[in-house]
């Protein structure tokens, strides 16, 4: 329809201009030499002062990685990555480890400020040790473990969390201070040899977050990590481990933005969650890595392994993700439902605009009795974007009474993008019940016109319609994230109307 083409062109002329978070901080980096070999793995481990067992663990991962090949089954295309042409260790220059934000490089803090990270809130900033106890009125407290490039530089709210016996720190700190916990759980949900990128991460991970919520404790605030890639050609290999002991509850937020880049950057994170009896972990992500320019140049490769184990009875793990960034997303946050009556949830919004590609979804493994899972996936494709939902629901013979509900909706904007749905269902249990629903639709011309006739600009109309489309997922996000996510959806689709 010519009218639609016209609209698309109009949108193109308006959009595509600005990635609002593109800037680079100038901080002296302490690089390891380029390339990847056993010496680099040893260098990283030594640099972080790790115990022997962890070095061995890394070396085993590296040995496994060397025998593996990149997975090529995802519906994404990219040129071969030269893993020897990248730095595997880059960190801000060390000044004996910051004990408070005063010791943090002010350049970093300014960077956060530009990003609008809550860290800039002075009450909370000052509250590294104590002031964070009285957050600004009317706001839910948020504890932040900020990961800048590869090393955590600031952690707030520590005092209040410690009172509850909660451990929330960088994983390097956890290795030093709580080695028994790290050793007990690290790699038990995502083993070193799980997949190519997980093996790479296991060998060279530099930092990430560690959370332990003790028995029966309900974490009094949202825990949050902001990621940011900052050094040229530095792949970032975050490793996050969250353990909720019996009866514990925790909600964890992860959000990221990255500076403008010309060359592709690899990001291969691993997140492991463990929920014991009656424990609940809610993990929310707003992913806004640099997506590349309107010609598909640059952008982050986001190859992430996220998995949670519901080990205990009646435990629950809930993933919510809003994926708007990265040039390529390869990500399947999954749940292993081992405990009887355990619950897994996956709520996802994935946007691909311009030349972005996303192959994302989830895996739900039903092992325990009466395990339940819910999958709600909303894919939005615009420009030349390609968006694939890929999911697996696997029900073992012992998982009697297991239930799954899956809903995959795709929204197309324009006529050059693609939406694909690849659901796998493997059911080996007679009493299990599996439901799958899927729809594909477009933003209709009559919807846009209806909104514009009521006075809304075309961009606002698209934002409104897209947010309506994603409502079931957005309402799962914690309040402070939901607002950010709604804005992000609109920014991501600027100029893509059709």
């Amino acid at each position, binding site marked *: *329809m*010519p*009218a*639609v083409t*016209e*609209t698309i062109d109009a949108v193109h002329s308006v959009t595509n201009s600005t990635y609002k978070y593109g800037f680079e901080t100038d901080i002296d980096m302490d690089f390891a030499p380029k390339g990847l070999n056993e010496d680099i793995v040893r260098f990283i481990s030594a640099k972080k002062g790790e115990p022997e067992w962890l070095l061995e663990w890394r070396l085993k991962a590296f040995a496994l990685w060397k025998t593996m090949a990149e997975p090529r089954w995802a519906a994404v295309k990219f040129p071969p990555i030269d893993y020897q042409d990248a730095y595997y260790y880059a960190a801000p220059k060390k000044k004996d480890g910051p004990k408070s934000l005063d010791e943090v490089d002010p350049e970093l803090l300014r960077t956060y400020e530009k990003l609008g990270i809550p860290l800039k809130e002075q009450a909370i900033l000052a509250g590294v040790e104590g002031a964070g106890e009285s957050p600004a009125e009317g706001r839910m407290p948020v504890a932040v473990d900020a990961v800048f490039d590869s090393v955590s530089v600031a952690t707030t709210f520590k005092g209040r969390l410690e009172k509850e016996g909660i451990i929330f720190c960088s994983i390097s700190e956890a290795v030093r201070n709580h080695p028994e916990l790290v050793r007990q759980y690290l790699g038990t949900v995502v083993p070193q040899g799980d997949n190519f990128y997980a093996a790479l991460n296991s060998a060279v991970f530099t930092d990430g977050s560690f959370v332990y919520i003790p028995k029966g404790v309900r974490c009094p605030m949202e825990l949050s990590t902001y990621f940011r890639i900052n050094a040229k050609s530095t792949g970032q290999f975050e490793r996050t481990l969250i353990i909720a002991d019996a009866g514990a509850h925790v909600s964890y937020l992860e959000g990221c933005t990255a500076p403008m880049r010309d060359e592709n950057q690899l990001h291969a994170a691993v997140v492991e969650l463990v929920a014991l009896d009656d424990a609940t972990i809610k993990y929310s992500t707003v992913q806004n890595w640099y997506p590349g320019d309107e010609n598909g140049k640059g952008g982050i490769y986001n190859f992430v392994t996220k998995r949670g184990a519901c080990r205990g009875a009646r435990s629950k793990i809930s993933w919510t993700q809003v994926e708007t960034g990265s040039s390529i997303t390869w990500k399947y946050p999954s749940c292993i439902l081992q405990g009887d009556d355990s619950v897994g949830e996956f709520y996802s919004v994935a946007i691909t605009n311009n030349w972005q590609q996303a192959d994302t979804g989830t895996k739900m493994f039903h092992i325990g009795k009466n395990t339940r899972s819910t999958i709600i996936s909303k894919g939005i494709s615009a420009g030349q974007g390609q968006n694939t939902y890929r999911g697996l629901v696997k029900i073992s013979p012992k998982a009697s009474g297991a239930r799954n509900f899956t809903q995959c909706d795709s929204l197309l904007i324009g006529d050059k993008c693609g939406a694909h749905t690849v659901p796998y269902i493997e059911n080996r249990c007679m009493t299990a019940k599996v439901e799958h629903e899927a729809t594909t639709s477009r933003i*209709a*011309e*009559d*919807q846009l*016109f*209806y*909104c*514009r*006739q*009521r*006075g*809304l*600009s*075309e961009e*606002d109309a698209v934002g*409104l*319609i897209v*947010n*309506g*489309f*994603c*409502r*079931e997922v957005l309402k799962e996000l914690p309040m402070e994230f939901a607002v950010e996510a709604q804005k992000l959806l609109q920014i991501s689709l600027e100029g893509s109307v059709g």
Partner: protein
Amino acid sequence: MLKIEGLTAEVEGKEILKGIDLEVPTGEIHAIMGPNGSGKSTLSYVLSGREGYEITGGSATFNGQDLLAMEPEERAAAGLFLAFQYPVELPGVGNANFLRTALNAIRRGKGEPELDAMQFLKLARERMKALSMPEDMLKRGVNVGFSGGEKKRNEVLQMALLNPSLAILDETDSGLDIDALKIVAEGVNAMRGPNFSSLVITHYQRLLDYIVPDRVHVLMNGRIVQSGGPELAKQLEAGGYNSVQAA
């Protein structure tokens, strides 16, 4: 005042409007009647700026502004409102959110302060009461799962909130039972005044029993073939459109 002169328009290469001349002075309500395919809906879409309609000649101005040169949202801000024949569903978009977003967009356009959620709710509840609309319609998705009558009432609610100076009602009476018809008519009549004008497009005379127009125009085959007072509508009802053609 709405002034249309020699307006011609095509849809996909086919000429639908073949030279419309029409003036609706401020403060008046005019009815446009005509058989199916005469160009009634095309006229309302052309005036409101929908894509897919090519203007091939003529002009349309509203209070001196060139309507045809404006974006749809600019026409809305200038006070033009179209009540849709088939109101569109917006899944997941809350009706209250939509109404407030629209209202504030229009208010911004007029340079008036925006309403916050509380001010908006107060105003919306008042207007809904007048239209016998249940309050839960604010919470539901825009027109999603609404009955035909509810959708039309929702259009009239939007009109009441946005307070346009020119309302085009595109067969708003179609699919309405007599009670809903009265409610819609009351909604329009309540807006009647020296600063409000309306173009009521309808197939049947029935609606005009409740919204008594100042003038009636008969649109046939892309042209206005006859104009007159309210009695013209009654004549059409009795003799059918053929009686006009014969005249």
